[in-house]
């Protein structure tokens, strides 16, 4: 197996807050192989966005980041110098943010912002930068690309702005793209288009893609592998097909039961729900963080739960010996 483009082991992020320390990311291990799409799923506040920001070194200044290992294409991100990190960012690893409306600078033209990383990382002349910007804008589905270059962000819709952000991330031909819920702020119809585009570009350019989302429907369509996060931990990870067909963690099962499947979810039958609330992560948690909401919780769940491994890279953090049955009344 080739060197993974991203290799994170036992990442933790702590943020001091008014009433203690928020253990926002507690134990996250991920790898992304070259040309692979890894989806990180989980609900709001589970630490999935912070995980991607931690990789880029873009955490808020008060946050504390620790990890056993964090490397990008063999380069150690834990001990990297600021200037070396700058040379990687926007060049070999690029990020697409959740908020297209505010992620572009209102005072500079689209063209200026697109060509900036290309020129900064010495990829070529201004002429070449403009050519590449036009070509990429066309590739991400923006009509009249040449004219867009002189426009300002406020003249573009949210969907267009996110396309611009994607084009911007692609300017230097990165090895890895981190996309942090890139479609959350967009209309549902645009969401699908943008995700298809991302998946297409990922295949076409052979990039690694770490896609953070809370939408399992997306995961099923685009991910090679999936990592399910809950309360700052990866509770289950593995190849998408395996995780979907044989979920080993009750939380994963709960998420899968929440997805409506056209022609299979019967009208009138309620979709699955997960009872209860996400635990408070201030001050840390002993044992399984999901046990308060879990129908299968037993005594061992109050102690530290070891990670179990299946055959094909499938791993889960649960004491249940067998898989989890669907809790829906009439499982499809």
């Amino acid at each position, binding site marked *: 197996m080739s060197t993974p483009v991203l290799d994170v082991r036992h990442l933790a992020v702590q943020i001091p807050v008014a009433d203690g320390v928020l253990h926002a990311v507690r134990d996250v291990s991920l790898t992304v192989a070259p040309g692979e799409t890894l989806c990180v799923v989980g609900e709001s506040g589970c630490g999935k966005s912070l995980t991607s920001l931690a990789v880029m070194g873009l955490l808020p200044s008060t946050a504390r980041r620790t990890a056993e290992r964090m490397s990008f294409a063999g380069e150690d991100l834990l001990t990297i110098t600021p200037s070396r990190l700058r040379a990687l960012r926007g060049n070999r690893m690029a990020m697409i943010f959740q908020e297209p409306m505010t992620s572009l600078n209102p*005072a500079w033209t689209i063209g200026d912002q697109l060509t900036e990383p290309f020129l900064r990382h010495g990829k070529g002349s201004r002429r070449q930068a403009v050519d590449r910007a036009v070509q990429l804008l066309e590739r991400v589905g923006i009509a009249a690309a040449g004219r867009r270059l002189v426009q*300002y962000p406020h003249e573009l819709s949210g969907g267009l702005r996110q396309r611009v952000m994607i084009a911007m991330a692609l300017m230097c031909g990165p090895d890895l793209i981190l996309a942090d819920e890139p479609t959350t702020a967009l209309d549902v119809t645009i969401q699908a288009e943008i995700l298809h585009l991302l998946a297409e570009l990922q295949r076409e350019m052979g990039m690694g893609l770490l896609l953070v989302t809370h939408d399992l429907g997306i995961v099923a369509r685009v991910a090679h592998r999936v990592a399910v996060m809950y309360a700052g931990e990866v509770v289950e990870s593995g190849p998408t097909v395996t995780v979907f067909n044989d979920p080993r963690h009750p939380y994963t099962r709960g998420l899968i039961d929440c997805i409506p499947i056209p022609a299979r979810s019967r009208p009138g039958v309620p979709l699955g729900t997960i009872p209860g609330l996400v635990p408070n992560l201030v001050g840390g948690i002993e044992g399984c963080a999901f046990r308060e909401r879990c129908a299968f919780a037993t005594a061992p769940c109050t102690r530290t739960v070891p990670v179990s491994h299946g055959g094909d890279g499938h791993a889960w953090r649960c004491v249940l010996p067998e898989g989890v049955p669907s809790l829906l009344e009439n499982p499809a």
Partner: protein
Amino acid sequence: MLRFTLRRLVLAALVGIAVSFIAFMLLRVSGDLAIALAGEDASPADVERIRQEYGLNRPIIVQYGEWLWRALRGDLGRSLFYPESVANLILTRLPVTLSLAGMGLVVAIVIALPLGIVAALRRNTWVDRTALGIAVIGQAMPNFWFGLLMIFVFGLALGWLPISGSDSFAHFIMPAITLGWFSAPVLMRLTRGGMVEVMTSDYIRTAHAKGLPARVVVLKHALRNAIVPVVALCSVQFGNMLSGSVVIETVFALQGIGYLAWEAISRRDFPVVQGILLLVALFYVVLTLLADIANAWLDPRIRRG
């Protein structure tokens, strides 16, 4: 951008006319000018003669119309004290005041921008608190007192700089610092506030994610957005310096329009006072126009407005 500029020009012209009317009226309502001109102990006949001579007995709107028509052609009347036209008098003094205010603004910006930026980037550290301290001192100290203090230290005790007159560049140094120092704090606070807000915005994170060095992130991506209100305030501050130069020019005996205004007021030389009033008011109009145009250039979203 062109349409925006034209629209602002028309607006500025309208404001200019309104301002001239107010400048004219203010002096008329401050008392009977005929009595003021003739002197307290003049006979009623003399007062009446002066009233006729200066046309003060005609309807006020006619007087205003005539004055405005002349003013538009550059004729602001004659000084009652100097054997010169008001326009001439102002023109010979104006360069002094403009240089003073210009230098003052440069001093203010040179102090305020770097301090404001650094204070924002090092928020809640000793750097920030020191900058805040400078701001409080600058704002709390009356500028004439600061001027006198400078005269005492650099003029008299150390003898480095001349303390009165407007003959050379050196004469302007202390007055400019006095004016600039007084204006710097408010500019600094605004710069700091703007930078603090902008530095937490999403597009600054984007700029970092592109791998840009901190210098480029701060100066290209943050400052351009944070500086928009500062530019507007700079123009107001420049106007304040022009009118505020009355005090400073008096302290340093600079022969500018501030000093002239002070003289004219104390001698009841009303055509001069009126001329200066109009000029300063028009300066504000022009400065606001320039600030609007500069802001539209800095922030494309304003151009639509």
